């Protein structure tokens, strides 16, 4: 199984740099603006993660919570999110898109119907924060059947035995959570330690594309350059919040942040 996500990693590798992944919340701060942000950063980013906002997120820190509550308050619904993806894909057909969210949203939509909509709108991968392995086995294989990557998460607390089993069941991309933290926490471990954990994963299967997320900002991104990919989320959400506070244009400001991030890992 291969899809646009695989090509994105290949391209980054050929340019001898990690893939840059961004996370923005669908509908933040409005449906229209979140689409504009995606379009503006698309050129600089290899893979776009789009958050499906949920109002009881148990793994998100304050920045992503703020973005999520803002999007929900502005009326975003799951169907709007598919529409945003679809509209974005009209603009940039080959840019891979991953939806990231909590399982209840998929459960209420119905797994099959959710995946059907993913397929129609052009979603290439899914990250479900609170559907860990082995609970996700059935859903992951449903994704696979439709050539949508189900992206397994690994954490510093994942035991070695478990690592092996999850990696064996994983699709081509794996998400490694850098440290014990909710999203947006300050990087509280050294990049050396993160990369040593990263190496353990790569050693089990070097073919999987492993991205590192949580705690990655303009300050920290360079030190983790050797990873297959790096995810920046909260730093972008914070930028949107700050721009709104300062009555500046979030689209321009987010583009500038992403541009600086990209320059640091070139």
């Amino acid at each position, binding site marked *: 199984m291969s899809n646009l996500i695989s090509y994105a990693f290949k391209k980054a590798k050929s340019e001898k740099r990690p893939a840059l992944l961004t996370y923005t919340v669908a509908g933040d701060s409005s449906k229209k603006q979140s689409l504009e942000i995606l379009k503006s950063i698309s050129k600089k980013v290899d893979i776009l993660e789009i958050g499906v906002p*949920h109002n009881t997120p*148990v793994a998100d*820190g304050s920045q992503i919570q703020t973005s999520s*509550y803002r999007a929900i308050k502005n009326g975003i619904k799951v169907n709007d999110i598919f529409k945003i993806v679809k509209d974005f894909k009209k603009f940039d057909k080959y840019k891979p898109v991953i939806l990231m969210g909590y399982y209840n*949203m998929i459960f209420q939509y119905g797994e099959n119907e959710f995946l059907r909509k993913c397929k129609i709108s052009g979603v290439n991968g899914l990250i479900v*924060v609170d559907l860990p392995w082995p609970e996700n086995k059935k859903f992951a294989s449903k994704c696979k059947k439709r050539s949508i990557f189900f992206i397994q998460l690994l954490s510093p607390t994942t035991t070695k035995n478990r690592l092996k089993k999850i990696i064996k069941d994983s699709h081509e991309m794996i998400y490694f959570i850098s440290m014990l933290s909710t999203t947006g926490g300050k990087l509280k471990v050294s990049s050396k330690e993160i990369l040593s954990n990263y190496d353990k994963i790569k050693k089990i299967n070097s073919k999987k594309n492993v991205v590192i997320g949580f705690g990655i900002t303009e300050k920290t991104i360079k030190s983790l350059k050797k990873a297959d990919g790096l995810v920046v989320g909260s730093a972008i959400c914070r930028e949107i919040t700050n721009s709104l506070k300062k009555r500046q244009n979030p689209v321009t400001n987010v583009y500038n942040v992403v541009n600086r991030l990209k320059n640091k890992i070139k």
Partner: protein
Amino acid sequence: MKLKKGIPVIDQGDKLGFWGGKFGGNFVPETLKKPIEDLETLFNKLKKDRNFINERDKYFKNWVGSPTRFIKLKNLTEYVGGAQIWSKVVSDANGGAHKIYNATVHCLLAKRSGKKVICGDTGAGYAGKMLSMAAKKFGLKCKIFMGAKDIQRQQPNVRAMKKNGAEVIPVYSGSQTLVDAVSECMRYWVANCDKVAMCVGSTVGPAVFVRICGWSTSQISRELKTQLVDEFGSVPKKLKLYNCVGGGSSSFGFWNEFMDYDKKQCEFIGVEAGGPVKSKKHAAPLTYGSKIGILHGAAQYVNQNTDGQIEETESISAGLDYPGISPLHCFLKDTKRARYTAASDEEALRAYKLVTKFEKLKPSLEPSHAFSVAIAEAKRFSEDTIVVVNSCGDAYKDRAIIERRLGKKYV
């Protein structure tokens, strides 16, 4: 879906922690998988360990104060007419509510696992107060997450927590009530699970927390069974056990020992919070047929919109103000072992007025919901029916609300 006999309900979940194949489970971030598994291993070992059980019983007896009273409400019985109305006065327990059982067990487990800090959530403030007491008793540092709205309306318990040396962390996200406090507490645990133990304040959350809490509060029904036999010579032929249900910890504990009895002999009635009469919002997912969804790591009936966003609740009682409900109660509902209904804010207040008028008992607003339904139904029952209401909290914490709603003389 079937309830098995001879196996504790807390142990009737499948390998992945689902009761009846669909309630409960572990919908948690990967980071929590390991600490949850560790806690499960520890709990499964210790709940079979005679020494640990003796230790628990020692603290329940000498520190919590067991047994709590089982009393006949003679005046109320006479006034209502019909069944005999009794109460299990669980608010006698140290700290004034059933939350002390779960808090004590979690602190004992934390000690065994070598953790020095324990964090917990609270709504009415009881779970937090008891955790702060137990943490102090066992020499653990304590952090309590509490919705900003609840901090305002349950000041006496907040003061108690602080007095016990706990750090009370206000939660400003969402509706600023229990649901947000639980989320924030889980987030804190995600970030600190290597050093910190977590206590979930009710029979909710990932499966192991549901089990630990149910195991702990079952002390209530163990005591009650002995007291019933002492009083009536055997478990009465017509027994009806009324309990309020928020997350569901006190009701589950109040019923557990009677689970294997035929429901014609021992009927369980759970009373949810119906909210204000004039409001569409409520905290009664079982009564009003909410759909199954995932909240705080477990599949359960939960108030939510069609997209799956959790809906805000409304209830006069902070302790019942929760959009979800224990997977155990979902299981008891669908297997028809227990019956669920709701009482409104106004009905609970009326019941509080009646009980305090006739008896030397001041149930908090949570059990007042149960009293409301028990009083209404007792009229229809024969004299040999024994109605028992779990008075699982004391009204001291509700003084401000009661004074505002009913006037000073009821405080």
